[in-house]
């Protein structure tokens, strides 16, 4: 019976072996390659990169493989790797107007400069299980899929080139079109504004400004943001959102290199950007105008970007002078609970032994129960005594029963 606290070392090693085995599953089936995960589970990869806060498709795919598909665990793996990486510096702000779009939709204007581009989306699929995928997978087998990996990558690259040729023009954002009319708030940073902080280098503290909030939300759990964003639509801080624009595509990342004294493109990344347009009633100083909620995610992550935009807008309640009525507008509540690496760790730490605390509680509950029993015993004796003395007067009976009932209830509550 001492096993629970002994032999931890061997148990841990055995658990590692079992984990490897269960991750691999049936060895008669071909093993998944990281390349297959990167190419065929691209949406999982996008989520892991976004919340893991590192843009690296291969590492994200590796993390997914190692975590046996548990995305929150994969995000944790990537974060724990990220924390050891040196910080070279900060890139220039991304110019998402210069995005090579693969998909771009607006729910506010039927047509707009640059047009709408449906692209690859599950939106208009009919959610019927496609049994042909099952058949294909069986026919192909693992090796065939591996061999064709290079070809699909090449095809994807070719497609991208074709797209970039097809859309050379810059695509102004819907928001900047509205801006010309002065209908929407300006989102330009003031010339002398302070540099945004870096949430991964400085502790989160409150009150948090918008730049910090957006960093937190970008790393935040998709499920949490989805639920909270949904809540804002159902009246918990409603502010009439319209999907001004959702775009997905690749943008170039530029960095100023001190040695060269100029800005150099260091690569391209895929991002999904969402700008929600919300009403704002205006105030004494500001005429009624549209306001924005902003969402940004790595890879193709529309649900995340949209939910983030809804939450971002809800969290601006205080700065816009709106009534704070819901947890979705409470900056500290939202930012403290959005991170799934933190949340998952703390929820699951309850698996760790708490023998000592529990023992302390046991001792207390036993003592309180003993005291309680003693008290009940005393009052019962007292009640019996009063019953005996007042037995001659039947009208007293209901009154004498009352305290006894009260004690019954107390006992149940305890």
């Amino acid at each position, binding site marked *: *019976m*001492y096993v629970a606290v*002994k032999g931890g070392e061997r148990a841990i090693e055995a658990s590692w072996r079992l984990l490897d085995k269960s991750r691999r599953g049936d060895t008669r089936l071909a093993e998944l390659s990281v390349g297959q995960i990167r190419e065929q589970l691209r949406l999982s990869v996008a989520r892991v990169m976004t919340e893991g806060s590192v843009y690296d498709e291969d590492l994200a795919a590796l993390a997914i493989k190692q975590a046996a598909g548990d995305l929150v665990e994969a995000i*944790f793996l990537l974060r724990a790797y*990220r*924390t*050891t990486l040196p910080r070279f510096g900060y890139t220039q702000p991304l110019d998402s107007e210069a995005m090579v779009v693969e998909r771009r939709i607006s729910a506010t204007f039927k047509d707009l400069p640059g047009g709408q581009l449906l692209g690859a989306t599950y939106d208009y699929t009919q959610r019927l299980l496609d049994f042909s995928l099952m058949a294909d997978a069986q026919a192909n087998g693992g090796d065939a899929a591996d061999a064709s990996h290079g070809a699909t990558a090449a095809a994807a690259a070719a497609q991208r080139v074709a797209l970039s040729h097809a859309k050379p023009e810059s695509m102004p954002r819907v928001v900047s079109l509205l801006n010309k009319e002065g209908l929407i708030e300006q989102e330009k940073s003031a010339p002398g504004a302070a540099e945004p902080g870096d949430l991964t280098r400085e502790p989160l503290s409150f009150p948090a400004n918008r730049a910090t909030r957006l960093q937190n939300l970008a790393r935040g759990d998709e499920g949490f943001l989805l639920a909270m964003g949904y809540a804002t639509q159902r009246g918990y801080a409603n502010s009439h959102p319209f999907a001004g624009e959702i775009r997905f595509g690749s943008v170039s990342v530029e960095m100023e290199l001190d040695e060269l004294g100029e800005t150099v493109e260091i690569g391209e990344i895929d991002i999904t950007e969402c700008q929600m347009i919300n009403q704002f009633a205006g105030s004494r100083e500001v005429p009624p105008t549209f306001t924005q909620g902003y969402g940004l995610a790595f890879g193709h992550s529309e649900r995340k970007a949209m939910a983030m935009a809804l939450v971002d807008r809800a969290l601006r309640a205080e700065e816009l002078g709106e009534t704070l009525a819901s947890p979705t507008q409470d900056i500290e509540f939202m930012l403290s609970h959005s991170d799934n*690496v933190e949340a998952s760790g703390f929820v699951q730490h309850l698996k*760790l032994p*708490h023998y000592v605390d529990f023992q302390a509680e046991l001792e207390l509950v036993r003592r309180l129960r003993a005291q309680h029993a003693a008290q009940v015993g005393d009052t019962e004796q007292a009640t019996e005594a009063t019953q005996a003395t007042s037995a001659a007067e039947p009208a007293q009976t209901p009154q004498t029963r009352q305290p006894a009932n009260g004690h019954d209830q107390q006992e149940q509550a305890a």
Partner: protein
Amino acid sequence: MNAPDPQLDGAPFDRAAEGYNFAYLDEQTKRMIRRSLLKAVAVPGYQVPFASREMPLPFGWGTGGIQVTAAIIGRDDTLKVIDQGSDETTNAVNIRRFFARTTGVKTTRRTSEATIVQTRHRIPETPLTDKQILVYQVPMPEPLFRLEPRTAETKKLHALADYGLISVKLYEDIVHHGGIATTYDYPVIVNERYLTSPSPIPKFDNPKMHMNAALQLFGAGRERRIHAIPPYTRVRSLDFDDHPFEIQRWEHACALCGSRESFLDEMIVDDEGTRMFVCSDSDYCHDRREQQTGDAGESGEPDVAVKRAEGESA
């Protein structure tokens, strides 16, 4: 930025993990943590924010304590890690292995041999010396969080030393239960100023914090806070004149070493619910049994002792 400490360069640490810096964290991060530690020591009991990193162990599983230990550990240190008082619980084993892998330092199970003791939920029974540092893993560093969850608010309460809330809570306990019903994570006032969480140690351990010779450091990774109790600092457990602070007492003695002074863990040893009480501090219990048998060599197997104890009771 990530350059290894020059003093450590070239000194091979045998089993240290390749590709990682000594004690996992890069030197810049360690310096950041040390700055927070210095501030924490300078203002006893005050929670200092620090830029907690993601660690390869989950938040809530000791990342704060691990970061503090990583920031202060050197090649000549000897590390002991306990969880619930025991060196053998899986999480203690895991953290000890982590440091053995990333630093190659000596580890020990003996409280008296350790220069750094990292702990979760206990203070060792063996008194510590001024050559030792006790590092606590802290889940919720804010002693007021159950009464006021917003840190923006609790910051103000600490600044004003406005601790009425907690006194009311303890008073309500007395009204409801006839006594203070807090048994662990029992709030203390450090150096007559800051209300401080002792981490979820049982209140049994609270008196050990008072005027302790060792430096006590508290790391909360997920909540990004560090606080400290310097050596020989006054630590007062909250109470009232007519309801003085009390610690837990057992009717039983430890079934293995017979101690009546140590904190006991309760175990259920058969289907009938028979209980056995054993020291929570495994090293203390082991030491006492070693002294009793006078056999310095072999008696490191509590299993044997358990069987003996069971045999005696049967």
